[in-house]
């Protein structure tokens, strides 16, 4: 980005603004970050564009340095099973992310059970069922149109009976501004909490890296409805940079825990803040 530049001038700041906006970083955060850099250029007497780049990485990294945001590991609870609930708007990669996390958990020897609590969308149960077969794990499914809360309830009971370590529950995609759908989600979380005797160990908000400014609305409204504990940012193998998560971390303090980097079960990585910011500025 700053290669071949001899000095710090307004055109450098214009280029940085363009790169950050094109990475879907919010205008508010871009303006704040660049104002900070302009100030530091003055007070620290910077003359080398590399200082700007380093300063920018620090400023953006600040959003991710929120203490709540830095705990990237997945929580577990006792007594088992640990429950991971997957939520998010339509088409972002919830079902596929369940498959990926299941593969990771079972690879380390743990036992997992899937809950097909998307009882609405065409082929949703069959899609998760196919993954259960491929991953050789059990699945609790009811009929299409059944109450999603009942599926999650049954899965928790079954996991206890079978001494299973993890229940991963799929939910239907839903637009965050649809009150009746968010109420349905609240009920799923309530029923799960009652059955588990504690909150779900993780409520993972799945977000698509191609999402623009609407991502903030998604994070805000899903967190208001259910205790979102982390974000899974998918489709980072595309050209979208997912910059909106910086604002989400900055304003809401939600940790980004995992990243989806493809469509296979093995395409799941831990979130790496340094690598993320580096890619943002590439």
């Amino acid at each position, binding site marked *: 980005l700053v290669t071949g530049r001899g000095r710090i001038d307004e055109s450098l700041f214009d280029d940085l603004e*363009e790169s950050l906006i094109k990475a879907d970083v919010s205008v508010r955060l871009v303006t704040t970050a660049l104002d900070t850099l302009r100030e530091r250029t003055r007070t620290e007497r910077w003359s080398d564009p590399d200082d700007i780049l380093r300063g920018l990485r620090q400023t953006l990294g600040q959003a991710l340095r929120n203490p709540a945001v830095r705990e990237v590991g997945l929580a577990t609870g006792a007594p088992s099973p640990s429950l991971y609930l997957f939520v998010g708007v339509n088409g972002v990669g919830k079902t596929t992310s369940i498959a990926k996390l299941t593969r990771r958990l079972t690879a380390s020897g743990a036992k997992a059970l899937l809950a097909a609590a998307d009882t609405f969308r*065409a082929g949703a149960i069959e899609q998760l069922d196919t993954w259960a077969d491929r991953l050789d794990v059990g699945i609790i499914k009811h009929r299409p149109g059944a109450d999603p809360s009942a599926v999650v309830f049954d899965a928790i009971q079954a996991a206890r009976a079978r001494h299973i370590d993890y229940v991963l529950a799929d939910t239907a995609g839903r*637009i965050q501004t649809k009150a009746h759908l968010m109420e349905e989600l609240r009920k799923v979380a309530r029923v799960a909490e009652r059955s588990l005797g504690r909150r779900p160990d993780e409520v993972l908000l799945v977000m698509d890296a191609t*999402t*623009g*400014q609407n991502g903030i609305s998604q994070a805000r409204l899903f967190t208001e409805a259910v205790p979102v504990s982390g974000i899974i940012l998918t489709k980072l193998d595309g050209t979208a940079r997912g910059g909106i998560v910086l604002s989400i971390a900055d304003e809401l303090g939600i940790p980004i825990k995992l990243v989806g980097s493809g469509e296979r079960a093995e395409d799941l990585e831990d979130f790496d803040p340094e690598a993320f910011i580096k890619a943002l500025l590439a």
Partner: protein
Amino acid sequence: SLTDKLQGVFARLRGRGRLTEKDIDEALREVRLALLEADVHYRVVKEFLQRVRERAIGTEVFESLSGAQTVVRIVHSELTALLGGSDARVQFAPKGQTVLMLCGLQGSGKTTTCGKLAGWMRRHGRHALLVACDIYRPAARRQLEVLGEQIKAPVYGGSQGQSPVQIARDALRHAAVNGNDVVIVDTAGRLHIDEAMMEELAQIREAIQPHETLLVVDAMTGQDAVNFATDFHTRLSVSGFVLTKLDGDARGGAALSIRHVTGVPVKFVGMGEKLDNLDAFHPDRMASRILG
């Protein structure tokens, strides 16, 4: 709203008879912010504001009392003109089969839109065949079959082991035999940077010569829209966009970006998950939505 923000700008400039260039620039900063927050592409915003600026400065009578409304009116009309102004109707074959191919990134709403289009076709007196050319996603064919049952449209999925190109080609023959005058081909979601998958799509297109190649785009897409829309269009010559999930609160600025850089019109909008939630595209409504 943008009008309120501009009222604030113009209130500070009160008492002047005519807007100066400096006043226009200050007003345009608010417009720029509104468009970027609506996910309009950085460069498209630049070019768009240039047009607005020329029109605003060229305007003769400029009462600063109604300056805010004037600027919003100019912006709204420029947006509407840019979003519209092209034939957004479906191109039907003059006789025989009409073939539509749907493509796009993963999760954008292609399969659901295929189901919706089959319903739309029936309401227009035509009989569509749905074709399941996604052989990769778990239970993709099953998803389309369920939608086909719901909308009462037949679904063709070829036989086990066939490639998407073979399935598509056989589907045309199947449609001819069964009296389907419209063939709607669903394809797997794919990245525009996945060379093998883009080549597959080009081959499907070559085999079936669609009358419509529809790129399905999620309304919440941000700045990346220009990247993939350009690539899909360059590779396949897209004839129309379908903008999905407009029942959410995403402003949908990606629509302006992709229309501006490719010249391709938005032909349909998805307004919900149910199969009757497919609407015609209204440029003026989209303009208001983008402006927030």
